């Protein structure tokens, strides 16, 4: 059978559509695709709500169940996992209304807001790592910031995925430290142009080519960000003396003002007593 280009393109598209016969879902439209599978918007007829439906290679069905067990505020909740009549696996999850991190950053949020997002991502990573799951493909497109400021890390990786070049660690074998690299790349991605050198240093340490030179885990990186936000020295950067003094002054501003006021009063009293 000789097929024209247009019929061939249609067939490739039509035969790839998930056959939802026997499920409670009705297909609406494609909303995204990545190395791991294609995501569609679908309607759950039983509960009369819209969901996101992801189609996976059948060999990855076990991984979908693993992801489904990740119950964390920054991980999109999975509603159901199952198999389609054609043998492919699927899972449904909350359909998140919001913007990808790349779109979110384009809106020029404050530094504090950017760091809040990074910390939420880091917390989700730490949670997943503690359960033996790594993301493998952390990038701005896989992070959603919801309309109420909630942060979701999506598209948790499986063995078939090997990351996106700008955020992929140069590691031969991906592990938790490869995710740390990607988190550092995300931190660098969200930082505004005039960034404090301490934050630059945190991103640089997370992105070292040698995995052993990176933070040991996500909590260690988050702790360094927290130290920065609280005005303490960060592990990733040996700061010059003047910078240390300035940071000390900024962190102890009230105390320094009180001391200055006390010294002024003392000086005034001394002056009055001697005239």
């Amino acid at each position, binding site marked *: *059978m*000789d*097929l*024209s*280009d*247009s*019929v*061939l393109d*249609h*067939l*490739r598209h*039509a*035969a*790839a*559509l998930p*056959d939802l*016969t*026997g499920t409670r879902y009705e297909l609406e439209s494609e909303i995204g*695709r990545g*190395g791991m599978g*294609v995501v569609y918007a679908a309607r759950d007829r039983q509960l009369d709500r819209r969901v996101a439906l992801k189609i996976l*290679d*059948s*060999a990855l069905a076990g991984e979908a169940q693993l992801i489904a067990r990740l119950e964390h505020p920054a991980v999109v909740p999975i509603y159901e996992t199952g*198999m389609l*009549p*054609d*043998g492919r696996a699927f899972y449904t999850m909350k359909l998140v209304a919001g913007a990808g991190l790349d779109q979110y950053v384009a809106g020029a949020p404050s530094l504090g807001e950017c760091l809040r997002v990074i910390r939420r991502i880091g917390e989700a990573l730490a949670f997943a790592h503690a359960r033996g799951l790594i993301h493998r493909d952390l990038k701005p497109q896989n992070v959603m910031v919801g309309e109420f400021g909630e942060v979701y890390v999506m598209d948790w990786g499986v063995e*078939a995925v090997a990351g996106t070049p700008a955020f992929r660690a140069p590691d031969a074998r991906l592990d938790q430290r490869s995710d740390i690299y990607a988190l550092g790349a995300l931190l660098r991605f969200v930082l505004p142009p005039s960034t404090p050198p301490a934050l630059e240093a945190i991103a640089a340490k997370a992105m070292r080519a040698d995995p052993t030179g990176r933070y040991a885990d996500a909590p260690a990186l988050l702790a360094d960000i927290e130290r920065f936000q609280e005005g303490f020295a960060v592990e990733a950067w040996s700061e010059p003396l003047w910078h240390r003094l300035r940071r000390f002054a900024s962190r102890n501003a009230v105390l320094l003002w009180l001391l200055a006021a006390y010294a002024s009063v003392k000086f005034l009293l001394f002056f009055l007593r001697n005239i």
Partner: protein
Amino acid sequence: MGGPGGQFPSTQLSLLEAATAGAGLSNEALEHVSELYWKPVYRFIRVRFRKGNEDAKDLTQSFFATALQRDFFARFDPAKASFRTYLRMAVERFAASQHAAANRQKRGGDVEFAPIEEQAVIAESPEQVFEREWHRQLFGLSLDDLRIHCEACGKHLQFDVFAAYDLAAGDRPSYADLAARHGIAETSVTNYLAWARRMLRHFVTERLRGVTAGERDLRDEMRRLWT
């Protein structure tokens, strides 16, 4: 086969897997490979080396014959590249050496220059032509499988509905039109289309299984095909 809730059984072992494991390529396997790759190889040679119809056919024929004689398929290493890439590169090397030999003869005055035909204005690269022709052949053969399957199990109506909608050359009819034309409910049109597409997917998978070296290679090809 392929009923709701059931998974498709694999009806065909990976023939390449057997060949690369040292068992050699059976006639059936060779037939399977050449059936799927003959046209892509032929089109690739025409576009890449600007060969005329007959020259390209001869070169394609001699490529497959030489490949069989020289144990070409047994040397395929799935760890290095997909079979499709391996085959395309082998065709390129083979055709280039034949092309060079022909040119040497031309310089000696033995052979007349072949006219460059209409394919000179093709916008796609030879690699893209090869890829697209391979898709066309894969789907064409799988559609034949689907049609034979429908005839064998009396599902003529399902195939007719599928052909009228998914193989329409111009505007596709609406589901309501199709239902009226065949005297069935509109929901039956939806179900018949879903069934036929599922079966087509199955036959495509089976065709791919025959020319891939194991489950992982198959999955990679499937991912490339559907995304």
